Every structure is written in C-alpha cells, then in structure tokens.
C-alpha cells in the first residue's frame, strides 16, 4: 500500500501534507513551493498545465485558464449566476443543470478540473516521498452540501486516488491542534484566506466533531488588504506628482508586489519603508516612490475590511445559540490571520481568548487532513508517543563541572556513552554523580543519584578508561553504568522518574539556565582553565623526573621555579589571569628544557617516551575528582 496524504484543496491555493514518522509534514512541490495555485490551463496544442505554470499564461489564454473552480464544484448552473460573471472563462450548463466549462469547444466538469489540480499535487508528492501516493483525505468547507462533497470525492477518483474521507476544513484545523482529545468543548475556527472568509463553530466530544454553525464572506481576503495599500500608494503619489501609477501596467505591477510585501512586514514590525525607484518619469526627469507606511496607517486603511469579519462571527454565534463566553478554543486559519488587527478583532469577539496559532495558518488544514489520513491508514492509531528527555543528563567531572551525556530534547529510548578518566595518580575509585539540568556547574543542577566505582588498578592519572553509559528506556527509566575498561569492573544505578518532572519545573530549570548562561559559561571556562593548568603541572613534573640528569641544571631550576609557582597559585585559587600567565611561561620553559635535553643526547623528542599521560583519542579531557 502507498502513502496516505491530506489535501487542502483551496479556492486559490492548495496544500498537500503527509504523516512521516508519526509527524505531519507539508510537501514541497516541484517548483519548490509549499502551496500550489489551484489553477489549470489548456494550451492550444491540447497540453494541460497545473499550478504556477498555468497561472503564468493566464493573461494570454484567459478563456482556457480555470481558477476558483471550487466556487463551482458540485453546484447547479442556476445557482452560480453571480459567480460565473466574475470569471473570464465560459461557464455553461450540462445534464441536469450541472455546471460545465466550455474549453476550446469541449465541455468539462468542475470535477475534472479539480482532478487535474489533485493529480499535480499527488504527482509532486510521490516524487518528494519516493513512493507512490494512493490514498487521500480531502478537505472541504463546512458549508459544502452533499452534492459539493460528492463532487469533490469524484474529483479525487478521477485523479486516480482512493479518497478515504472528505472532512471539513475547520475540523482538520482542530485536528492539527489535537483538539479531538478534548471532552465537550466549543471551538471557533476563523479562516481568512486569500479570497474567502469562513467562520465555523464546532462542538467536540469523544473525538467526534459536530458543526454547529457556519458563516462567512465569499469575497473577502488578503487580496482586499493589498488593494487598499495599492490605492493609498497611488493616491499619495498622484497628490505629490500628478501622475496616476494605476494607468501604467508596469508600475501597477510593482505597486501590487510592494503592497503585499509591506502588508506582510507590518504583521511583525510597526512600520515599513516602501521604496520603488524610477517608478515613472515626466518631462522633468525620473520619479521615485519612497514612502513609509506605519502599522497604524495600515490599520486605518483596512479597518473597514477587518470590520467586515465582525458580522459573520456574530451571526455564527447567534445561529449556534451561543455567546462569546461559550467559546472554549479559537483557531486561526489562513494567511491573513497574521494581520495583528484581525487577531485583535478575534480576541475581542471571543471574550479575550488567546487563539491557537502555533501551526502555520496557511498549512494547518492540510496538516489536519494528513493526521486524519494517518488515523484512517492505521498509522496514527495508538501511536507510540515518542517521548523526549525534558532536561539534559550528565555526570560531575573535575572542578564541579557538569559533563552532559544526553542533551535535552533527545528522543528516547536512547543510549549514549562517554569515556572518562582519573584525576590523580593511583586513584582507586571514581564517584559518579548523576546530574539533571541545564546549568554548567554540577552544584546548580539536580543530583539524581550517586555511586562509586572502586577497585581501579593502580595507574597514573588519565590512564584508566572509564566508560560511563546512560541508557533511558521507552518508559523513561534511566540506567547509568560505569565500567573500568582495564579491569572490567562495573557499577550500575537505576533511576526511575527522570523524565517525570512536571512542566513548570522543567520550564523553570530551562529558564534559569538561560538567565545564568553567560556567567555559567565563564565559570566553566575558568574551571577548565584551572584543570588544564593542573594537567600541565602534572605533565611537567613527570617530564623532569623522566629527564633526570639529562636536563641542563639552570634550565631545570627555572622550570622547577615556575612549576612551584603554578602549583601554589592553583592551591591558593589565584585569579585565573595569573594562572594563565604562569601556565604559558611554564609551557615555554618546559618545551625548551626538553629541547636542550635532547640536543645534548642527540635524541629526538619523539624518542623520549613516556613524558606525560597519553590521552587516547576517545578520552574526554575531563576527569573525575577523587573525593
């Protein structure tokens, strides 16, 4: 069996999504876009085009380029007298008063046109997924009647799809937010798209959605907002320069593009610069359009459009016999709901409720359809909810640093190991302190448990390899083990409930880590610098011992002097700058010491052998402190 997809077959644009690894994903079409224009064209040589390509030739071929077909699907010819006057292609009637399009003398049903859009979406999806798409869930507006629903289903069949179900767009949006799990709630879905506005009120209980009422405005959307900005720009320009840019096709095109861009920017900023150099010219030379549009001005220009949303919402509430306070959840759908004034109106009409808007409003319907598809195909049925570790886990290492082994938000089950070593010569045991949290220093994190691995054979520091393994199973039970690779000795601790922190506790810990991030980092770097200096002191000490008589006396004395200074500084917790200076000096002195020692004997430094502990490639440069 092939993949099941969810399709939002829109009036102006369509979106297709699929469940992948238990998560809904929007599929990118061959043009690289996440939405596909719902446009189909027939060329004079009989070739059919769908999507963006069809739209690009629509001006040249208006009679054979079909868009907004959704306004006709499943309807009678006598019902669409207004709609058919708005389109440049020929709408006629077929058997039983059905709507037909006359394309180059051939009669075609809206279902056939929609099928071509579906085919384009599905073909691109198959290419993207690398496997055949056979089954689909398709969405329709909640107000669609049986005939419109059946026609949509037929479009799917014509496209060669097995249509598992036709679901309502608002229901799909609610599914995308997981609202099917709510017991007895009332949901308002506010959908302001490119060219249509729909508001629906749903009841949910036991995973079943019931549409209580719907309302809307079939000709209100983002394009209206753009037009207001275009007119304002053109009017202002005319006032200043006496030229109406709307009469110049090229200039108008630039205005439309700039207006849409400005509108989108004003959703996140308070003002935007509109800059169109050389927009036109007169006898005095070139003219430029350079103006600022504030959000306040934009809201002023479009207030009447936002206001047009009010009536349908009030009517939908009245039809459902509800008041604003009865609404439990509000969902925003459609790109135009990104406009702050629209959001403000929605809040105002729903008793100040914060609407759901985490899922991209252009994609939320397709995503919900994909989820429904997953459920029907049995993919989502009792999904194993893949859990994540809410906080990082690790162990305490030299200097009280937390060494992370599993980062936060890692999907479980998971198993990770790291190799550590000892901090002192002949250290017989290591203490494993299992930590949880996001802070850099061990003491700021939560200790989940401690244990000791002893019986480590005598060795110089840094030589033993102690493998620490963190293993979290699917139930969130953490098992930490430490194993000395030399002796094979092993100790284990099992900690249950490492993932069972409540949400506020996790948020607090993550938040604290963010606040302290920079000071923690500084502190950690300091500890690391001290550890490094300590390690150098140790190496140099051994070097002197190994060189024995070979070391020139006065150089050796200087190294010993510096070594003593560094060790004292470390012991006395001297400022880090002093330690760094001493460390640098010692490193240089030790280096020249070994050089002159080998020059005396004629041996290369490589032949010296055994100077300092050899850190293996996989040995992490952090060591357990002996306690």
């Amino acid at each position, binding site marked *: 069996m092939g993949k099941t997809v969810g399709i939002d077959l829109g009036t102006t644009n369509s979106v297709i999504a699929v469940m*992948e690894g238990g998560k809904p994903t929007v599929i990118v079409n061959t043009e690289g876009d996440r939405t596909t224009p719902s446009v189909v064209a027939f060329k004079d040589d009989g070739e059919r085009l769908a999507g963006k390509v069809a739209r690009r030739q629509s001006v040249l071929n208006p009679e054979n380029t079909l868009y907004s077909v959704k306004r006709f699907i499943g309807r009678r010819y006598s019902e669409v007298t207004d709609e058919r006057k708005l389109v440049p292609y020929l709408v006629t009637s077929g058997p039983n008063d059905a709507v037909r399009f006359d394309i180059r003398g051939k009669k075609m049903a809206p279902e056939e046109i929609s099928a071509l859009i579906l085919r384009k979406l599905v073909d691109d999806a198959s290419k993207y997924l*690398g496997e055949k798409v056979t089954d689909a869930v398709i969405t329709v507006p909640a107000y669609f009647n049986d005939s419109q629903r059946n026609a949509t289903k037929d479009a799917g069949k014509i496209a060669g799809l097995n249509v598992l179900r036709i679901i309502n767009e608002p229901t799909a949006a609610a599914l995308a937010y997981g609202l099917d799990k709510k017991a007895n709630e009332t949901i308002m879905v506010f959908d302001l798209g490119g060219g249509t506005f729909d508001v629906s009120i749903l009841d949910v209980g036991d995973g079943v959605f019931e549409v209580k009422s719907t309302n809307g405005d079939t000709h209100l959307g983002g394009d209206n907002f753009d037009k207001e900005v275009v007119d304002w720009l053109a009017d202002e320009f005319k006032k200043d320069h006496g030229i109406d840019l709307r009469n110049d096709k090229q200039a108008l095109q630039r205005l439309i593009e700039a207006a849409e861009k400005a509108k989108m920017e004003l959703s996140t900023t308070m003002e935007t610069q509109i800059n169109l150099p050389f927009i036109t010219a007169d006898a005095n030379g*070139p003219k430029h359009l350079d103006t600022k549009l504030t959000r306040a001005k934009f809201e002023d220009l479009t207030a009447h459009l936002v206001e047009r949303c009010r009536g349908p919402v009030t009517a939908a509430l009245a039809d459902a016999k509800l008041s604003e306070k009865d609404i439990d959840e509000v969902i925003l759908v459609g790109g135009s709901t990104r406009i702050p004034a629209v959001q403000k109106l929605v809040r105002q009409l729903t008793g100040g409720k914060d609407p759901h808007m985490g899922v991209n409003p252009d994609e939320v319907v397709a995503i919900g359809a994909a989820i429904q598809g997953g459920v029907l195909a049995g993919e989502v049925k009792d999904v194993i909810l893949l859990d994540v570790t809410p906080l990082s886990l690790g162990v305490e290492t030299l200097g009280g640093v937390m060494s992370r082994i599993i980062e936060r938000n890692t999907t479980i089950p998971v198993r990770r190991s790291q190799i550590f070593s000892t901090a002192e010569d002949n250290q017989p045991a290591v203490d494993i302190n299992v930590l949880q949290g996001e802070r850099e220093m061990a003491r700021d994190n939560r200790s989940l448990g401690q244990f000791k691995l002893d019986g480590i054979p005598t060795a110089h520091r840094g030589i033993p390899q102690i493998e620490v393994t963190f293993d979290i199973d699917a139930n969130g039970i953490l098992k930490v083990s430490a194993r000395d690779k030399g002796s094979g000795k092993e100790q284990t601790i099992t900690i249950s409930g490492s993932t069972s922190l409540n949400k506020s506790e996790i948020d607090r810990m993550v938040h604290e880590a963010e606040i302290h991030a920079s000071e923690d980092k500084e502190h950690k770097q300091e500890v690391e610098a001290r550890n490094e200096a300590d390690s150098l002191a140790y190496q140099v000490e051994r070097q002197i011992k190994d060189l024995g008589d070979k070391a020139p006396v006065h150089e050796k004395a200087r190294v010993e002097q510096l070594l003593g200074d560094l060790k004292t500084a470390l012991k006395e917790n001297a400022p880090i700058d002093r330690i760094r200076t001493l460390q640098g000096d010692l490193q240089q002195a030790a280096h020249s010491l070994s050089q002159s020692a080998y020059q005396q004997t004629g041996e290369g430094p490589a032949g010296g052998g055994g100077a300092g502990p050899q850190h293996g490639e996989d040995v992490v440069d952090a060591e357990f402190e002996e306690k």
Partner: protein
Amino acid sequence: MSRQESDAPQDEVLALREELQEEKNRHLRTLADFDNYRKRVERDMESNSTRGKRELIKELIAVLDNFERAFGQIKDEQLRQGLRMVYQQFFDLLRRQGLEIIESLGKPFDPCEHEGIGYLENRDFLPGHVAEELSRGYRFGSDLLRPARVRVAKRPVRIE
C-alpha cells in the same frame, strides 16, 4: 481438564501472535519511513547551501531591475556610464555565483520560464513567440528565480 482451561492459553497465543504481527508491521513501517527520510535528508543536504545562496540572489534581483530602470531614465552620459560600471560589477559578481539570464526575445512563449502579460501586434516575430520583454527573467542553475515578463507576438488585425 475443562474446556475453558484449555482454551485460555490458545486464545492468548492468538492474541499475542496478532499483537506481534501488528508490532512487526509498525516496526517495518517506521524503518521504511526513516530510510526514506534519510535519503531525502541526504538529497536536501546537497542543496541546502545552494538554497541559501539562491534565496539571497532572488532578493537581489530587485536591485538589478532598478539599475536597468535608471539607465533608461538618466540623461547625464557620464553619470550613466559610471552607473553602468557599478551595475556590471554587481552583475558579474552574481553571475559568478550562478545567476543566469533567461533569453526570451524571439523564443516561443513558454510558461515554465515566461510570464505572459499581454499580446503585441507585431510582424517581426512569429505568432506565439516573445515580441517584447518587459522585465528580465533569471535562473539559478536549473531553478527558476523569476520568469521573464513578456508580451507575445500576434498578427495585426488588418483593417480593410
């Protein structure tokens, strides 16, 4: 031994077998999903850096347009020449990064690369071929950045 007792383990085996089958299915499905996902991520990885470049160049096309508009409107020859040199420098830089101009004039109209914004009555070009380019189209490798906006040739209507 009563019948009930002997049936119980039998039922359990059946139930477990079914459960095992279900789990096996789910496991395979996840593996397949993951494998496909991995393949796609690999594929996407190759294009990630080019995608970043492409998006930037796409934004810069607007600047190229404005240069061209300036040439058409600035009368001062010296200023125009200087501007042309700046433009050339800028354009060469983008071309080295992979920007290509779509040649449209005289080519058959192709909506994969051209956006038709009208007809032009014209005898110099074959009908259905591009007779005028209003703004340039650009390609980045095999990706279309912006179609050329064109007018298409049409036979003049003869007035008898």
